[in-house]
């Protein structure tokens, strides 16, 4: 098991290519502590996985990063400079889990709305719709979509946004194995085009396949930060599996 000083060393080691630095972020809901002095960094063009069981604080962390939930303490830096709440929406776009926004609208209207707001070229809209496989349901109302297509719509909306960092809560929830693989490939393409992804995932297998680095969360605390190899080395786990590392650290 890693000691607290090991974790602190990992958390404080901020590399030169850190895009965002999160330092000492904390949040309470009344008596309940949701985030406790959470610190880590997000590097350019990486897929960073926030890993933790239900109730670990993943969603709270993402909402705090997006500026949708006020933090009680801590700091968020962008390239070393404080990132104000007003500037937050220029830096990150957060896609919550299980949303059916504007559910009595047609799918096409939501897509066209986001495309018009962000001034997306028609070719980009066509490419995005085809990439997430949304074409068959464009004329359906959002409330009638299956869980899978609901997720595809949300993913399409997120891909139409221009922010450098995308925060996604459980992006593979509701997809079968084949669809999950497809979406992972798509997200890889997204990072290839210069965007950075922070994904909250509770399925460790999925996380292991898609993420470059991991932030392990439990009870609102960071239990480990690094690549799978770094975490294995830290925990002396020989299996090389994220599941074993996670159990060792939490």
């Amino acid at each position, binding site marked *: 098991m890693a000691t607290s000083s090991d974790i602190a060393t990992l958390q404080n080691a901020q590399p030169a290519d850190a895009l965002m630095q999160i330092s000492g972020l904390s949040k309470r809901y009344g008596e309940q502590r949701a985030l406790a002095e959470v610190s880590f960094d997000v590097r350019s063009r990486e897929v960073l996985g926030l890993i933790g069981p239900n109730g670990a604080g993943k969603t709270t962390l993402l909402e705090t990063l997006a500026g949708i939930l006020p933090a009680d303490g801590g700091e968020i830096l962008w390239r070393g400079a404080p990132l104000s709440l007003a500037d937050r929406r220029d830096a990150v776009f957060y896609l919550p889990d299980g949303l059916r926004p504007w559910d009595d609208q047609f799918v096409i209207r939501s897509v066209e709305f986001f495309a018009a*707001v962000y001034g997306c070229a028609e070719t980009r809209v066509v490419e995005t719709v085809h990439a997430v496989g949304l074409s068959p349901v464009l004329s359906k109302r959002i409330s009638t979509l299956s869980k899978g297509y609901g997720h595809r719509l949300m993913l399409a909306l997120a891909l139409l946004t221009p922010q450098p960092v995308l925060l996604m809560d459980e992006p593979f929830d509701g997809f079968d194995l084949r669809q999950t693989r497809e979406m992972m490939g798509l997200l890889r393409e997204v990072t290839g085009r210069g965007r950075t992804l922070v994904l909250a995932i509770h399925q460790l297998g999925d996380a292991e396949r898609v993420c470059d680095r991991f932030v392990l969360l439990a009870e609102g605390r960071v239990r480990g930060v690094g690549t799978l190899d770094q975490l294995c080395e830290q925990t002396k786990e020989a299996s090389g599996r994220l599941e074993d590392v996670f159990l060792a650290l939490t």
Partner: protein
Amino acid sequence: MRSPELAAFHRASLRPLLVKELWEMLSGRALWTLLLILCPLVGYSFAQAVALYSEASSAARDSPALASGLSPLDGVLVPSFGALYLAVTLLFPFVAIRTLGHEKETGALPLLVQLPYRVPTLIAAKMAAISIAWLISIIPLVSVLITWILLGGHLYAPETLNLLLGHLLYGLLVGAIALFAAAISESAATAAIIALAFTIGSWVLDFGLAGQPGLLEWISRLSLTQTLRTFEQGLLSLSLLLGIVAGIGGFTALSAVWLHPGQRLQTKLSRSVICVAIIAAVLALATQIRTSIDLSEDQRNSFPAADQRALAELREPLVITVRLAPEDPRYVDLRRNVLSKLQRVLPNVTVRLATTGQTMVGSTSDEAYGEIEYSYGGRVAKTRSTSHREALPLLYGLAGKAIPTPLAGEDYPGYPLIAGSELTLLWFFAALPLLIAMTWWWSRRAPRIPQQLVQDGGQS
């Protein structure tokens, strides 16, 4: 310094946001239900008003004196618009709440606040949608105006437009309150309770506190219903106009303060205090404005033109001491016939209620009860009359002025009309609701999908 990597989209077009708000409003059932309920309500009110107006007109056919009392504003427009008042009070909050409440309930709010618009812009777009909703909801009323003209009725444009303006402001005020309620509530149901507490609470103020002395009388003036009464009398009061606009702006600003879930509670509270202070300052300023325009065709809010001119020349302060309880009907008459008209035409009028704190029952044994004392230029005169026909000569006497000669041809002729309104019921109860239902159905059709977006696939 701002990083060049940050997305620079501060000039996002407003058009998609407005279009989205419009579609959101049209997609809900609230607006269409309001419209469908308004049709028979307005139609029945109109038919009843026309029937009564016709009855009164047949009696006035041979009497010019009776005919002069027949005003379409009082006889037809105000009763018909009363149905709109009822619908806006009870149903319009649901339309307004939906513009934000639905986004809160479906979780769209976190997406909305991340869009490249400032929060006040988001709220302004919602208020624009609420304004459009109000414009759509007056379709049955526009239909009333057209029907009245087709029946041969008379409309005086300034007073009709003034009445419409009053209802627009009342609708927007109710809309802004409902939007604020939605901003501070987690669910649409809670927001509806808060909004209805304002609107129905106004009725409580009207019925429970009106005519009460002192603080209760001041509180009763906060009733939303008060906003309409002046417009229904054909008066455009700049003070009231500024007050309502301040109310609309204030509740809209408070909605913007409370919308963003990422703001701390302390920040929201401190900004709310600033907002409320600004609104209070504007309202205080509004009470100092005396300017008002009488837009009624019969000039009911003014004395006869000759008196208006003569009174406009009086420059010294006039103090009127009234020994009547506020709930006494004679005081209501005096206010309507004399005091409010004097306050409009004279630059410096002070009205003192000598019976403050007393009730009508307790005061009637006082011999001086009922006296109205006019004090001008150091001279004093008393009367018990509540009519301007007695009060004005008294005032001219105090000012040492001759009673002006009435101008010829200024009498309001009245507009009697005998018309049958049975057929109009068919329009309001069947044809118009059918047209509205068809438009609703048409608005729900699927939009055209651009060919390049279409691709084969199945539902997962």
